[in-house]
């Protein structure tokens, strides 16, 4: 109780201080406005901070953040900006390293014109940058991180990529409804993600009358899975669920087929890449999986997005082009709804109330846990390529 009392006293002091600061800020703004005519439009510019790995081993991913955000800002500016103010991207390179992400966050936090942040890329970088961005009350949307606890730990943080609580149960539900499976085999990579998603898979399966007859794991970088797949085959499953990355997923698919395991293979989105089909060759045929974006899909939204990026950059869009673009649009949308760009706490909360927002490819909402709910595609490998799959019984 003492602790609580202390805390509330402290909060009181902070509040008092904030009021003073706000007052001063207000004065400053008034002063700024008086000079505004002379200072020109640039003082009014709203800044979207982008923290991305522009150099280093994840440079390709960082480039997508940059291009996606810049294209969104260009589109917004062409349509008259946000609340009549133009936007600008401030690009900061974190080289994919947490300590640089923290330094970038410091820089953005110090800039009063920043209204929101796109990035950082990895969960570790987010964890380093978030306390700083949170103190500056900056809404932050990572185009690529997908760890749900980032959102539970930080109230200014949002994700764009689907998180495990959302898609974890999806795959076993699909197995049950669409494929009529009762006996599941799970293959998982032994890392945080693999264990997390496999727990979600198994929990949903058990709660819904299915049995997990085999659950085998491997270490990232393993290339021989025949002993695992032999054990899986002995359990006679109805479906194999791949909680894997695409290289291993493809090799597992191939080796399972070579061992004569002919049951359907159902893969997480981490496998739905062209390389999966390339490596697994003919054994990939018929594999099923979900994905939030794949440039080759025959879908009007995807085609529109691909054409848009093709026109802007002369190359097809990749996943994080889309999530980065949508991230900027979601922040802009919240600011428009709030009606001013200064009330950062309200802006962050408003992002969390997003419902059925028309993203570049599909609809985006945030659920009660503030996690993204996105339109996903079901796909299957046909003729060596992932193509759209139309579920007959399964509904999202």
């Amino acid at each position: 109780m003492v602790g609580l009392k202390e805390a509330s006293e402290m909060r009181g002091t902070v509040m008092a201080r904030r009021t003073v600061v706000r007052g001063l800020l207000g004065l400053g703004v008034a002063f700024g406005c008086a000079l505004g005519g002379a200072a020109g439009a640039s003082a009014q510019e709203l800044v979207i901070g982008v923290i991305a790995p522009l150099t280093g081993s994840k440079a390709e991913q960082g480039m997508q953040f940059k291009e996606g955000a810049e294209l969104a800002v260009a589109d917004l500016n062409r349509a008259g900006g946000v609340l009549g103010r133009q936007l600008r991207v401030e690009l900061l390179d974190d080289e994919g390293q947490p300590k640089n992400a923290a330094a970038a966050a410091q820089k953005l936090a110090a800039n009063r014109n920043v209204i929101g942040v796109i990035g950082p890329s990895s969960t570790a970088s987010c964890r380093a940058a978030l306390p700083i961005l949170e103190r500056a009350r900056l809404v932050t949307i990572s185009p690529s991180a997908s760890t749900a606890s980032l959102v539970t730990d930080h109230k200014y943080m949002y994700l764009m990529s689907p998180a495990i609580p959302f898609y974890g149960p999806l795959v076993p539900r699909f197995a049950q409804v669409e494929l009529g499976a009762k006996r599941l085999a799970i293959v998982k990579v032994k890392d945080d993600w693999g264990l997390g998603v496999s727990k979600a898979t198994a929990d949903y399966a058990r709660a819904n009358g299915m049995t997990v007859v085999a659950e085998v794991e491997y270490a990232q970088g393993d290339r021989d899975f025949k002993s695992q797949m032999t054990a899986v085959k002995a359990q006679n499953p109805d479906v194999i669920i791949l909680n894997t990355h695409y290289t291993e997923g493809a090799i597992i698919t191939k080796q399972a087929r070579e061992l004569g395991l002919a049951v359907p293979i159902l893969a997480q989105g981490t496998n739905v890449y062209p390389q999966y089909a390339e490596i697994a060759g003919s054994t990939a045929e018929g594999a099923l999986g979900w994905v939030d974006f794949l440039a080759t899909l025959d879908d009007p939204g995807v085609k529109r997005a691909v054409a848009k990026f093709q026109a802007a950059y002369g190359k097809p869009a990749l996943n994080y082009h889309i999530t980065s673009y949508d991230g900027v649009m979601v922040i802009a949308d919240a600011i428009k709804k709030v009606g001013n760009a200064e009330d950062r706490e309200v802006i962050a909360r408003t992002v969390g109330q997003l419902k059925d927002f028309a993203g570049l490819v599909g609809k985006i909402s945030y659920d009660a846990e503030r996690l993204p709910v996105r339109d996903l595609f079901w796909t299957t490998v046909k003729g060596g390529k992932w193509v759209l799959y139309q579920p007959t019984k399964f509904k999202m």
Partner: protein
Amino acid sequence: MLLQQAVNGLVLGSVYALIAVGFSLVFSVLEIINFSHGAMLMLGAYFGLVMIGALGWGFLPAVAASALLVAAAGAIVERATIAPLRRREAPRVLALISTIGASITLEAAAQLVWGAQVRGYPSPLPPGGFTLGAARVTYLECAIMGIAAVLMIGLGLFVRLSRTGRAIRAIAQNLSAARLMGIDVERTIVTVFAVGSAIGAVAGMLTGAYFSFAQPSMGFLPGIKGFVAAVLGGMGSVVGAGLGGLLLGVVESLGGGLLSFEYKDAIVFGVLILILIVRPSGILGYDTGEKV
């Protein structure tokens, strides 16, 4: 299931054996561990990929050409990174570190030329197979075991019967004495690197075809496994490398399947430690004592 795991293990084991023999040959003449051997595997796989993919060659001609190219690469690595140290009579550990450097350089070069991403690998045979009792064996697996067996036997005969083979064995017994007997030691050492690398290249292409991918870092893990197999069988012995490879593959496969996949590698290395406690020089290795 037991039979299937054993078959899986034999296939893996024959690839390990091919890799192990490269380590073993070099060790027998120079008493160093050639850590660039894994990179030779990778080079072999990529050269093969280029010949099959870009040039449209068949698998067997590609294997032969790739083996020749990698033999040259192996000889160059020896001349460039190990021979200068030997001439200056530098401690052996420096030569070992030099091979690590060569390995990293080759891997980086491959990444520069072919990119870091994983590439699919063509299979020389149609995907089918046949059933053997409770086990399924693919044609490719048969081919891998066949090629490995032919190469191992060929190499064993080469070391036992040919002039160069005799020179290799003489150097293995005593390098200085061999030189005094008029054996061209330098040429023999280069030959050993070339032959070991060529066999590594074949192992690389088989690994690529078996797992159906190529990647600049693909030689690293098989390299380690091959090295372990060589130690297990007894460094310096061709037959030992063969036995070590097969044993390692089967232990890994059965241990993983019967006990636990999580501890697959722990089981493998546990067995290695046990065998080395009982027989410090490996299954077929013989203790020649310190050379003075």
